[in-house]
């Protein structure tokens, strides 16, 4: 645990020192601009616009960080050979990998939490007072974070066995596929034979299902989110990330460094 903690803390420190959190400035500017603009052009739908814009921005910025930094977690260390001295110490390779994963999730948590605070501030500035249902914004942000954890795990897996460029492509591709994986389960095309439908259904269960984490429509309309839904999404994200992580650890444990 000591080793994992040390690697995770260093990964977080790297993100901070490499000015990854500067994206928050962009987010703050976006929210401020949106708040000013929304006040002038939209009457009655200010909450709708601010929440959808804010949650989308949190998600998009998070996905960019998760994909690019997730891929760089291992590939950058291998390219620059910074992990040579580290892996020669009494550190298991999976410990290094888990530390990197948790470090980036920690970075994303801080980043997402700061953006969520900015979103609340923007919401408060255009539509005072905040509604009790606005608490569900936090749930939506939490679910985005779970989604990001799966993306980091995928990026980590691909960066363990392929080039950074391909790893980014694969991760982004799987993310897009994951947005529609639930739809694959409900395909009812008449011209498809049962075996093809079965194959599609099987693939849909292998792909990550990112629709599990999308509650934007509910939050915008001030509807509640069932706690069972949050628990199931949490369990799904943890299990899916764990399985992907085990795969990454297995690949990386026998990987020859350059």
């Amino acid at each position, binding site marked *: 645990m000591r080793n994992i903690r*040390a690697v995770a803390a260093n990964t977080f420190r*790297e993100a901070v020192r*490499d000015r990854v959190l500067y994206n928050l400035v962009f987010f703050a500017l976006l929210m401020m601009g949106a708040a000013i603009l929304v006040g002038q052009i939209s009457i009655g739908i200010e909450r709708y616009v601010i929440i959808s814009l804010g949650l989308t921005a949190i998600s998009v910025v998070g996905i960019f960080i998760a994909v690019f930094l997730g891929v760089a977690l291992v590939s950058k260390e291998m390219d620059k*050979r910074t992990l040579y001295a580290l892996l020669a110490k009494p550190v298991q390779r999976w410990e290094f990998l888990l530390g990197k994963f948790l470090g980036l999730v920690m970075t994303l948590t801080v980043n997402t939490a700061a953006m969520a605070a900015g979103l609340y501030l923007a919401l408060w500035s255009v539509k005072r007072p905040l509604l009790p249902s606005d608490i569900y914004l936090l749930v939506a942000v939490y679910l985005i974070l779970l989604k990001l954890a799966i993306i980091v795990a995928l990026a980590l897996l691909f960066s363990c066995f392929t080039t950074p460029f391909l790893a980014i492509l694969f991760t982004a591709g799987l993310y897009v596929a994951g947005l529609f994986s639930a739809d694959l389960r409900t395909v009812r095309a008449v011209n498809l034979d049962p075996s093809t439908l079965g194959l599609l259904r099987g693939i849909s269960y292998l792909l990550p299902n990112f629709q599990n984490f999308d509650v934007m429509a509910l939050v915008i309309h001030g509807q509640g989110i069932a706690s069972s839904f949050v628990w199931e999404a949490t369990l799904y994200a943890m299990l899916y990330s764990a399985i992907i992580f085990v795969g990454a650890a297995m690949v990386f444990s026998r990987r020859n460094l350059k």
Partner: protein
Amino acid sequence: MPPGAIEIENLSKEYPFGFLNLRKKKSLESLTMRVENGEVFGFLGPNGAGKSTTIKLLMRLIFPSSGSARILGESIDNVSMHGSVGYLPEQPYFYDYLTAHELLDYFARFHGLSATDRRSRVEAMLKKVGLESANKIQLRKYSKGMLQRVGLAQAILHRPRVVVLDEPMSGLDPLGRREVRDIILELKREGCTVLFSTHVLSDAETLCDRVGVLVGGRLRGVGAPAELVNIKAQGMEVLFELPGEAPNHPFFTNATRTGDRYRVQVAEEELYPALEQLKSGGARLLSVAQIRPTLEEFFMHLVEADRAQASAVDVGEK
């Protein structure tokens, strides 16, 4: 036999290459050797000889195609054993957003040192490698030589029993090289085993109890530097002084003259007749020394033999 510090048995490493990685290139071929406890062992060889491959295999950065290795009697796959080993990679590059102090503190955490121990050890190490004044500067501003010093500090920070250094003198100025030499000798005095690879043969001659010469992935010789170079004696060198004109004798005419001083090489069995010639010619004998090939000559001889063999195989294949 008690376990040696490092024991390597039939260690081989092949790398796939070519289209679909179907072809294999041997980087290391059945290496068997042993480094004794407390000795300084030098790994010599030209680029691509397999020195770094061997070291990376020992540090489990790459995995062998066959064979095994043990350090301090434990398999290299035993991760906890690596707590007793220090390693300096070739051309080390560290997290450049950290200062030297932060980097060493980070690495010290993997050895389970307390915060107090970490602080005192890190400060002592920075002082030892001459970086105490630069310890608050981010590593991205360090020169190659300074990074090498940081690398050395992280390798010995936890007081390991075995230290493996890949080209430790690389990138250092003469003063830096001298300091690294002193550190290696200090480690030896403390009972530490040191294995290091180098191109600088004089360093190996000065520091090593034994050296191993790797050429083309194969171990071509192991022994004390003096043993290796004494395999083939090359005669005697005589230095003498003779004012004025030298007698017209082949002994004198074959000599290299610098002012009144002459230097001549003779076969060992011709030494006494040569000395008689000197005496009769009125020369003053300054010194007589056995001509020992340097480690460099021995090394180059092996490299050239390997190249000749490789080109012979090449021609044969054509």
